[in-house]
């Protein structure tokens, strides 16, 4: 396991030095989920450059939603007007139609200047005001900022006493392709789960209700703060995720035991699902060497599925830090041929791996994919391409595998392009 606690740490053994850490601006992770909630109107506390960039990516990937901010320049910072201006922006946000939630997203400059939570209103009109602190200098990746935001929302909104305990309701945590929770829900109902709720979602009411659920299952491995909150409500946590052949089987069995479901029924459904996944792999096995090198924090699970489907995945890298939640996938991968799993990776590490284990396909960040494509290697931006199709259970596995297969078959195009353009670039 290679760990970089700060993004720049010299590593022994002739490893590449780290110059260009790979993550979206961490704060974007929080804005993405906060802007998508119906009735939520984020207010940002930050400098103009940061505000411009984060608003840009939020309008591209988050929501068609106007974003308000306090103007914080030298003048305002010197005069100590951070709180005053932020409150003014909160008051404007509260006037939006049916405003129910105003997340105050506090970023590097405001955090450095200081934005005391007790100085902000807790509520304005019908809207809850929730402070979310996501300075990029302290939170190193955008997946982890999603956790920070969700934890802050749940701590405020979660309502364990708002109704009866729903012992047979399962909470799924993770931003996943919308068809995935439907498929998971359908399968879980067969084993006796009565309801599922997916977080982060678009409904504020869901945030209140999840505190009374029977169990929570993180589909992604970076929601540690969120899980802490669930534990404080005595909601049991189910580890793993319904990914691939063995993963799905084990996950269903854990749910059965945590939620006290009929063991025979669970075994029957889990075995069926396992058989189906196995049949999919048997029908269209993958071959070839694949890199999984995104920055979404979900890379290890994807790598695991690809390995189960027959691919060789020698190198996996991600933006998140190591954590007990992700350790089982790392151990599984290491036991199945993966040579390196890199946390908090930099572009230089990914590029060096390209030489060590020349791959047939790269699923990576945009800078890394550009470099792979310059070498004629099929490559795709992990964030855009993988997160936008089903992934979980046998049905998700089928969709992802066939997509990977198709892409690998397109390899001659990548070679043709590089041949054509090489003349221009070398000249």
């Amino acid at each position, binding site marked *: 396991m290679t760990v970089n606690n700060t993004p720049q740490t010299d590593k022994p053994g002739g490893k590449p030095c780290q110059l260009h850490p790979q993550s979206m601006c961490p704060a974007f992770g929080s804005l993405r989920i906060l802007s998508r909630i119906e009735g939520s109107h984020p207010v940002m506390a930050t400098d103009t450059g940061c505000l411009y960039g984060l608003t*840009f990516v939020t309008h591209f990937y988050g929501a*068609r939603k106007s974003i308000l901010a306090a103007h914080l320049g030298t003048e305002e910072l010197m005069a100590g007007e951070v709180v005053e201006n932020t409150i003014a922006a909160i008051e404007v946000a509260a006037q939006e139609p049916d405003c129910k939630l105003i997340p105050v997203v506090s970023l590097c400059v405001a955090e450095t200047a200081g934005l005391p939570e007790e100085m902000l209103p807790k509520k304005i009109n019908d809207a809850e005001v929730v402070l979310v602190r996501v300075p990029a200098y302290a939170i*190193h990746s955008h997946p982890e900022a999603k956790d920070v935001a969700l934890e802050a929302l749940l701590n405020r909104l979660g309502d364990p006493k708002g109704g009866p305990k729903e012992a047979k309701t399962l909470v799924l945590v993770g931003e996943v392709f919308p068809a995935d929770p439907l498929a998971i829900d359908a399968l879980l109902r067969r084993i006796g789960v009565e309801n599922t709720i997916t977080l982060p979602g678009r409904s504020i009411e869901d945030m209140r209700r999840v505190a009374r659920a029977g169990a929570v299952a993180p589909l992604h491995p970076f929601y540690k703060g969120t899980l802490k909150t669930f534990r404080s409500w005595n909601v049991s946590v189910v580890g793993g995720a319904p990914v691939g052949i063995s993963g799905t089987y084990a996950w269903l069995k854990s749910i059965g035991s945590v939620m006290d479901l009929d063991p025979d029924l669970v075994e029957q459904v889990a075995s069926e699902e396992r058989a189906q996944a196995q049949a999919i792999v048997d029908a269209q096995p993958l071959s070839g060497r694949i890199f999984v090198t995104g920055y979404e924090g979900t890379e290890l699970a994807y790598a695991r599925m690809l390995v189960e489907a027959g691919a060789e995945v020698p190198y996996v890298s991600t933006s998140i830090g190591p954590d007990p939640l992700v350790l089982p996938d790392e151990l599984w991968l290491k036991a199945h041929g993966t040579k390196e799993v890199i946390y908090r990776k930099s572009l230089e590490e990914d590029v060096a791996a390209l030489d060590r284990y020349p791959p047939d396909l790269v699923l990576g960040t945009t800078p890394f994919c550009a470099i792979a494509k310059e070498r004629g290697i099929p490559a795709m931006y992990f964030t855009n391409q993988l997160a936008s199709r089903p992934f979980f259970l046998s049905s998700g596995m089928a969709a992802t595998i066939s997509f990977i297969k198709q892409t690998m078959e397109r390899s001659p195009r990548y070679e043709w392009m590089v041949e054509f353009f090489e003349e221009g670039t070398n000249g």
Partner: protein
Amino acid sequence: MVKIVRDLSDTSSYWAALWTMCTMPDVHVICDAPIGCFNLVATAVPDYTDAIPHIENVTPSVITEEEVGGTGTAPAVKRTYERLRDEGIIDDKYLIVVSTAESEMIGSDLSDLVKVLKPGTTFFHSESLTEDEWTGRDRSLQWLWENYGADKAADVEVQPGLVNIIGATYGNFNQPSDIHEVKRLIEGAGGTVNVVFPENTKLSDIADLAKAQVNVVLYQEFGHTLADTLGQPWLHAPMGIQQTTDFIRRLGDWLGTSEQAEAFIKHEKKTTLQAVWDLWRGPQSDWFATTSVGIVATGTYVDGLSNYLGQELGMQITFVAPRPRGKGDMDNSAVREILHSKPPTFVFGSINEKIYLSEGGARMTNFVPAAFPGPVVRRSVGTPFMGYHGAVVLIQEIVNRLYEALYNFLPVDGAYANQRAGKLGASGAPRSTQADPGNLPWQAEAKAILDAAVEKLPFLARISASRELQMRVETQAHDRGLGEITPDLAAEILEMQSE
């Protein structure tokens, strides 16, 4: 006074510095930044403004809690420098260290540190907490000249006929096309393009700027300080027919190539601009007087578009909001209010305006990308807004969108929709297409709502649209078994407010 920002239109001078300096291949920048300020400026945003996978010649110091908490950023910058040096990445490069809002926030002044880095390394204090991108670009260009060009340029002689283009930086909407057109105009007027600065220039060649007899500054927002410093006559790049003609004449005058400039104008009228003349003589220009336009963009584009579309073609310019916002200019909240209540037929703007149109349900308004922020690819050189070619591109775009609006209201047989929905049974068409819905009486108030809905449409589409909207409401009335059209029904189906 408390200042609230809604959907910021202009970024900071730190971005400006990177988007100016990193256009030159022999420069490497260390940005004194946390990971986010590096990712957004070098990858996430230029991916969608300039369509480049990432800016390669910039490396962050990666400010973490340690630096914020006490050590300051000097050790991190030094460490970054040493690694770049050891990897050979900055051999033969000019190294520039640029401050960010966060490094300025913790008071990190590195003007002394750069003296112990690679010889010649400089520190650019970007003033990111104070200045916007336009001031930042202007100051960066001037700073580059003062630090890298002015001394070397002392012996450079002006060469007749040479013309520079100043202001080519990342993050300017439609820049490749506009530069391509400006080059064409310069050459047409009898000039020779010398340096397009700074994009496609090497910093080592910066003194070449002094060779030009005339400078063309691409945008009103920045570049003028450098042009003034260079001391040669300069002018802004033009938009619209008259301005472009003036531009070519002025260049011809200054370069002593007036005869060639006049011949070029004459030839352009018969070639590039012929389309404008033909569309003017055709039925298309008849629609212009009833075409309403709102513009939110840089001052350069606001002035150019409102002059060409408003003054020269005679469209109604219903509002303009230049960016950066000057005194008395509308802010985004005011723009939003207009777009929610009275959106014009065309809105030239950024993604902000597009979002306000979505919020307001203004589906009949044509949004035309004309400014950042917003993801858009404009790398083809065939879509200028500037110059004669730009005049043609704009008129063509507007007319095509009017055609599209008309098309969308032409009737299509309802039977196809029924077939798709599996509703076409043995008994023939269902009732809604069977009955002639034209005979239902409309209450006066309902009719007023229909009229108001039609008013909102581009003029060209109104004849077809009025019938189409009427039928849409009446079909619903039949389906619901109503004997007449009530104001409530009309308002519901036409998504209009009932009075």
